[in-house]
């Protein structure tokens, strides 16, 4: 299988304003958007060619995007599917994920959130099975099996939860990671808590890494989340 230079991303969405916003986000992450506005058209397109990512709405004319996932997979597509829907309660999300969606974004969404999630999916799509035991970012070394972190030769003591957090950051190094993504992927919680509980956890991890490395490792991105950038590439 060859990955095209520009990843093709199918958008199945009947609301034109939303579809346009999604297309824009797709172009922002370097993809080529292909738009469909109904369930049947979307399903036909998804079966026809191999997309990198498919964005599927749920309450489409003709059907529910979640029901299309199994059919798309049965047709041999290796596309990652993100459901983007107004059915955005925790239970809807869990239902979608259980039915095979790779990600689930509730409407209304912030364009930054969609971009962050698209990048994470594209990264996952292109990731060559990374079973390296040691992942290094400059002098920052993460040992996956031993679940330890070192800066140079200094061991950084972090809790198991902080390690999980760091691993998720490392997998998305250099990209914006949103609070909602962290809550879903690190804590497996799909609702929006009233308080930004995640901030305190990221803050603790950030302070530990910063103290050890003597430079900022995790940066706060405007508004929505964080960027893990241990070697300062994004600056």
């Amino acid at each position, binding site marked *: 299988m060859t990955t095209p230079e520009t990843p093709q991303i199918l958008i199945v969405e009947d*609301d034109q*304003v*939303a579809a*346009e*916003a999604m297309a824009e986000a797709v172009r922002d992450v370097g993809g080529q958007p292909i738009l469909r506005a109904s369930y049947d058209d979307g399903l036909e397109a998804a079966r026809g060619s191999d997309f990198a990512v498919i964005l599927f709405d749920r*309450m489409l004319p003709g059907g529910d995007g979640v029901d299309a996932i199994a059919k798309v997979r049965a047709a041999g597509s290796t596309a990652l599917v993100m459901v983007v829907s*107004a*059915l*955005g*309660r*925790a*239970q809807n999300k*869990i239902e979608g994920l259980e039915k095979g969606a790779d990600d689930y974004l*509730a*409407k*209304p*969404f*912030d*364009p*930054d959130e969609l971009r962050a999630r698209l990048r994470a999916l594209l990264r996952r799509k292109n990731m060559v099975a990374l079973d390296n035991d040691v992942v290094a970012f400059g002098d920052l070394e993460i040992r996956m099996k031993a679940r330890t972190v070192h800066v140079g030769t200094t061991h950084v003591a972090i809790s198991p*939860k902080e390690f999980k957090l760091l691993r998720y950051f490392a997998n998305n190094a250099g990209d914006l990671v949103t609070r909602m993504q962290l809550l879903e992927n690190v*804590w497996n*919680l*799909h*609702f*929006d*808590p*009233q*308080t930004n*509980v995640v901030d*305190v*956890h990221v803050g*603790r991890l950030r302070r530990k890494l910063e103290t050890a490395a003597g430079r900022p490792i995790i940066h706060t991105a*405007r*508004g929505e989340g964080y960027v893990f950038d241990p070697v300062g590439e994004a600056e």
Partner: protein
Amino acid sequence: MRRARSASLRMTLMVASGIILMSLGAMGVQYRVTEASLNARQAELLRADLEAFAALYEQRRIVALRQAVEFRVASSSAAQGIYLLMDRDVKLAGNLDGWPDGLTREGADFTPKGAQIFDHNGVSYLGIARDLPGGFPFLVARARTDTLSTLADLRRLIGWVALGLVAVALLAGWGISRAVLGRIGRLNALADQVAGGDLSARLPSPRQQDEFAVLQDHVHNMLDRIEGLNRATHRLSDAIAHELRTPLNRIQHRLSALEGQDAQVEEIRGEIRSTVRIFDALLDISSAEAAKGQRPGLVPVNLSELAEEVFDLYEPLAEETGMLCSAEITPDLHVLGERSLLAQLLSNLLDNAIKYCGPGDAIAVLVTEQDGRFLLQVTDTGPGIPEELRAEMFDRFTRAERDRDRAGHGLGLALVQAIAARHGAKLILPETSKGFAIGISCPKLDPSA
């Protein structure tokens, strides 16, 4: 269920015992009639005897009477009748050796008037005792053995018939109530199944068209209607979610086109997010209420692990604001539940605790086994809930006047209550000297289920 069974059986037994009583009454009347006619025949025999003796006495007085008595004694046995003629204390004729003790003599005539019933040597007799002129005691009596044994037979027969009737009535009552209750029981089971959440449950169509079939049809029609309404409600809430989120989504996208007003844009985004949170909470509450007590959708959840995770998520936040956090969690307590809902419940309780507590306050999470159920409890030493709000604290949009300037919509506890109900859990509000404590007591997961 038990009570209903006894009620129907009672009805059947009442009808049956009515029939039994009437039959026994009829047999009682029959018995009286028979008894009267047998007694009349007995009296008739006695009168015939007396008439014969009277005729002889008319002719030759005591001499003839003595011969007649001797003749009678010779031709019959003492078991049929007793005869005795005496001259003061001396026996002249008869089949008794002496006057029976305690038998009083009255009058001197030969009519059956004043006939008395008496026992002699264990046999019952009907007869007369006279003092004939000149001091001759005279006794004529007929044994009642035949009459009495006929009546005894009759009584025995009535007894057996009554026993038989009771047995048949009991059997019939049992059979009828089984047949009736079987059909009512099926309807009851259907109602239970529906109450348990399976709105599409129906009974197979009945074999014959009777009142039960009509009742069943009515119940089915009612259920069809409820099911339809329920479906419509679900569609409506989905539609609301969709129809409101779509315009909000557009607002959100238009916002990102704005430049140079980051602070305001951020504020509007915050408002959109909190609006979405309100109707998410409302939809969560109604869907949890709709699914109340239903088994489908519930899976085994490790309550202890879940509580630990959510506690770990909130603990740093509380600590950073200077609160003392503690958790006492008995490991590996499993309940049947929805992980996400239970996490949301605890998250709401901790959110509240952190929101209302200040530096120095303590927040404690407890997961333990209590009275055969699993208890999940959050206690804090914050300001507590104002007394006047206690009654309505679980209602939607209830907020204390003093909290108007705090973030929130008064949906947290309403959602907690709905989630608890969804899991068949009881909400408990332990008394605290200071602050607020709330717990939910979940049914244990039966390990064999």
